[in-house]
């Protein structure tokens, strides 16, 4: 069956190999009104992870919600350099796709947007935990954990302004 140590994905938007710490959101996020483009911080007061910063992380979330202006807010976040390194959702997320597509049109480096492969199903969410360090490979289409696993800064979720 599946190797529990890796998660099969497909690219909704192609991007390079990235590795880093995971931030797994418990609830969907509205980028507009939910993510500050000038800090990468979650500012939706109603979100359980409000206050955490997504910059440079592999952002795993159930999906997006709320405002249709979300692509613009994520685009600004990517353009100002505070975006996540990759975005992973159980089903293809259109708002995310639109933002990264436009960011690339504005000559920004591509941000991989990933979803679990059909074979993988949604159980991928169960093995991805905030603070663990993982790598995405565009050649194998796999997410794999890094050996050094947990980052020391995981509890702090420092936001570099």
């Amino acid at each position, binding site marked *: 069956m599946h190797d529990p140590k890796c998660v099969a994905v497909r690219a909704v938007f192609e991007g390079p190999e990235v590795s880093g710490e995971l931030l797994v959101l418990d609830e969907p996020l509205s980028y507009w009104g939910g993510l500050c483009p000038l800090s990468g911080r979650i500012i939706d007061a109603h979100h359980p992870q409000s206050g955490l910063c997504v910059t440079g992380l592999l952002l795993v979330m159930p999906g997006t919600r*709320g405002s*249709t*202006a979300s*692509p*613009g807010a994520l*685009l600004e976040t990517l353009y100002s350099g505070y975006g996540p390194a990759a975005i992973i959702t159980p089903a293809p997320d259109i708002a995310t796709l639109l933002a990264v597509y*436009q*960011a690339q*049109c504005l000559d920004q480096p591509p941000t991989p947007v990933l979803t679990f492969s059909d074979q993988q199903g949604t159980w991928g969410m169960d093995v991805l935990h905030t603070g663990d360090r993982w790598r995405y490979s565009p050649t194998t289409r796999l997410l794999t954990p890094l050996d050094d696993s947990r980052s020391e800064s995981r509890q702090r979720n420092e936001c570099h302004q």
Partner: protein
Amino acid sequence: MMELSAQDRECLSGHEGPALKHSMSLLCSVAAASGARRLVDVTQAHLVGAYYGGKADLKLVERIVATGARVAVPTTLNASSVDLRQPERYTQKEAEFRNSCRIVRLYERLGCRLELTCAPYHLPQQPQRGERVAWAESNAVVYANSVIGARTEKVYQYLDLCAALTGRIPEYGLYITENRRAKVLLRIADIPNRWLSEDSFYQLLGLVLGKLYDGRVIAVVGIPVDATEDQLRGLGAAAACTGNVSLFHAIGRTPEAPTQDAAFHGHPPEEVLSIDSSAIREVRDSLSHTTTNTVNAVALGAPHFSHAEFKRLAELLDGRRIHSSMRCFVSTSRHTYREITANGVMAVLESAGVQVLTDTCTYYGSLLRSHDAAVMTSSAKWAYYAPGNLGVSVRFERIEDCVATAVAGKLSVDEGFWGA
């Protein structure tokens, strides 16, 4: 494999210019991601990008305008970050106004109509039942699908512009009949009768519905057949805040749900949920996260105030003035503004000290930013977004209580209304 029309392929090849090539390519990417088999026509578009979002967005739209592209279908704009008609009254930052003007002018040059509203359903060219449109703005999407019975997905920013420029949209989600079928039945029980004619009850119900939403369309049973369009839109707007809701049915009230059987397309519900008055009280408490009893502003009209809401506001004021220590703002569309100016309601509100803004929402911009006291609102959407956007604390109350507070100059709320 996706079917493309000859015209779609022309666009994709670049023969129709770079903007259409870019648009068609993005439409195809979204179609692929969403599993759409083809693109279909839309009759109109409503774009969400008319407020200043930042440098990246401005640059992107400037590039499209520079190609000389024009929209292919009638296109309106969502609210801007400032009141472009009355900048001297309602804009505090010069740069904010300048940037907002720039982005709106760019959309005008693409051929968009200068109606800047989150309530396009109040405009004269309301779509018909079954008509396919490409509307952004979450509350307008729920309204179009649920209250009018038109068809639109929640067309995100940039996808909306692609649809406007090409007149095409991937056939996915709520453009497909099967996906409009209700799967979850939500019963509302043990609700005091007085709540059922109260606008804010429907918004609270919407917040609960949004939280319950798991991707399957919900049909509500128990909504009175005489629930108003404003009440249904309040329900939808609130549901779109807490969940990704783009369509709900109210059995016996909304166009695709004359009966339970019609709402469920002849199938039995996959799940039956039930909520009572305690769920409504709970969500009401969660929305007003302030301990301060000091209120010095009232913000109304998110989504944009309707003609009926203005009339009610004038009735509730009943000749009284807004207290000198209070500010009372109402946001609306230019269209509704023209209507209430023509029939004299505006003059009544103005003499009462009510300040009416068009084109924008007070949860954008700097008008109500960094207040020491709380802002009271009768809009669940405003209450939901303003704390994050503006850093203000909020009290969500009924319009009666908003008016009583605005007139008294201090907190004046009938808590008994929400009691047992």
